[in-house]
């Protein structure tokens, strides 16, 4: 129900004497607590429009440079890049901070500056015939982190997380490639373990934000909402029956990138637990590490049985995620857990059952029954769990 409709309904109840002024105040107080905060839609639209505008300007500049590449002297190319980089950041700061008044447009320009730095690195690489390596991406990520802390923008945080994720995958694959560990299955296992460790790291960083540190606290929910999907993906990737070969040999070298990430995760989780007192995030992160680590280690002992264990762990993990979300006041965990269960059921259905059915119509009927069942279940239960999660919100 829309907020205005709720307000009108309360007016009517007060007018016909069902609610007195004191009770109405208590109802309003409860509604404010239960309902998600009202969104400033106009402001959100302004942010989206400004971001699209910045991207279009950047595309226009890149297109101009690309079409006149051979006619532009090197000094002009470099000068243009520096001018654009400084211009975007200066305008972004002026609009968002001093004198301010245009926070959405300002942050969009700062985000444009962050993206432009990557384009500048690419241009310099092209001018001097430099090889593309993960190091360049790491530099881009590291120098962009301060802008997340200064602006507390989710857009810039998302860019920075994307940069770190791409770097981590690229660096891991590059490292494996250099050691002749580049078979599909080896890369899959290594990246699966890496994703679990990454989930632990994100939970740890979210925990540090939950400790009241202002610059991080805005980022904490966003980091948390990326952590659980990363953990889910780490298990989901290994949950397919045909993916693991019986003669698979798990070498320690394969897990070095994940071990490095796990070390960072453990440090972040320990800091979240001891410094910020975020024991729930620390527990979540530890669970992500264990859930992702157990199947990978099991691959070294009994590869043939690993997929069963992975599926059991995945199922148990998703149920626990929903329960934890409802108990600890994290609706995003409830939604992700239910979405994961839905994806898992449908994947296993098509993988194991649908191909054995002789007639195509049976496969459609079966999938339809599953989807209806899930819809019925969600209709009945999801709202209850989300309400419970909101009530438990700290």
């Amino acid at each position, binding site marked *: 129900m829309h907020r205005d409709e709720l307000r009108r309904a309360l007016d009517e109840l007060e007018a016909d004497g069902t609610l007195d002024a004191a009770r109405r105040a208590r109802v309003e107080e409860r509604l404010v607590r239960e309902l998600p905060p009202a969104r400033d839609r106009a402001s959100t639209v302004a942010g989206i429009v400004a971001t699209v505008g910045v991207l279009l300007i950047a595309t226009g500049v890149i297109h101009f440079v*690309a079409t006149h*590449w*051979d006619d532009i002297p090197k000094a002009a190319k*470099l000068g243009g*890049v*520096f001018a654009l*980089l*400084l211009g975007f*950041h*200066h305008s972004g*700061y002026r609009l968002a*901070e*001093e004198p301010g008044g245009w926070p959405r447009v300002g942050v969009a320009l700062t985000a444009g*500056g962050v993206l432009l*730095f990557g384009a*500048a*690195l*690419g241009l*310099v690489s*092209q*001018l*001097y*015939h*430099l*090889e*593309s*390596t993960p190091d360049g991406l790491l*530099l881009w990520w590291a*120098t*962009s982190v*301060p*802008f997340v802390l*200064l602006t507390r923008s989710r857009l810039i945080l998302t860019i920075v997380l994307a940069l770190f994720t791409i770097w981590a995958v690229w660096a891991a694959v590059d*490292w494996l490639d*250099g*050691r*002749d560990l580049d078979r599909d299955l080896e890369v899959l296992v290594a990246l699966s373990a890496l994703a679990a460790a990454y989930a632990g790291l994100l939970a740890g960083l979210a925990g540090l934000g939950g400790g009241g540190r202002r610059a991080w606290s805005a980022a904490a929910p966003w980091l948390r909402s990326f952590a659980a999907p990363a953990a889910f993906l780490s298990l989901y990737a290994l949950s397919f029956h045909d993916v693991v070969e019986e003669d698979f040999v798990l070498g320690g070298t394969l897990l070095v990138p994940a071990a490095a990430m796990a070390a960072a995760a453990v440090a972040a989780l320990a800091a979240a637990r001891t410094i910020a007192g975020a024991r729930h995030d620390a527990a979540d992160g530890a669970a992500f590490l264990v859930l992702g680590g157990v199947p990978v280690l099991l691959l070294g002992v009994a590869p043939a049985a690993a997929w069963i264990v992975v599926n059991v762990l995945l199922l148990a993990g998703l149920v626990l995620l929903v329960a934890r979300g409802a108990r600890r006041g994290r609706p995003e965990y409830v939604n992700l857990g239910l979405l994961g269960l839905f994806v898992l059921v449908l994947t296993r259905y098509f993988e194991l059952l649908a191909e054995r059915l002789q007639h195509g119509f049976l496969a459609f009927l079966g999938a339809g029954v599953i989807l209806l069942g899930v819809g019925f279940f969600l209709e009945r239960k999801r709202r209850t769990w989300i309400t419970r999660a909101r009530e438990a919100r700290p």
Partner: protein
Amino acid sequence: MTRRRTLFLGAVLLQAGLLALLVASEEWNLAFGTRVELAVEGRDPLDPLAGTYQDVTLAIERLPRSLARDAAPVAPGDRIHVLLRSGENGHVADGYTVREPSPESDLHLRGTVRRVLEDEIQVDYGLDRYYVPAGARDPSLDRDVDLRLVVLVRADGRGTIEDLLVDGVPFDEWNRGR
């Protein structure tokens, strides 16, 4: 100046400064490096996905293990210094070592060991790409063409690509002639 403005300025200057440092380092190489010509063994067609460039594979990317100057074997990821000497077809590898040669010793190029095979090692020098103008002719389409990469090498072994010679002619000049 407020603390917030100082922090923001610091973040911007960090990006701009690192970019300027990268440019300065490459310009320094181009101005003061020692010019070497390295034979190119393989080359791929133009790849429009990463801009337009020639994927060059240097002959010295594969080195016989007999060229090792150290007793201990090298492993993937090790940084090595490949000693260069002038040969008939440009500069060729004269040996490799993990120890950094002294500045006054032989000319050398710094690289990273990618693979160690039974009788050879594969080395990455970060000199795999030569960017060309969009629409430039692909020299690999010509049979028996002699390709050489012109690299300017600093005393510490770092190299910067200056040009790609096609049958002894700088790439731009060769491309214009076509």
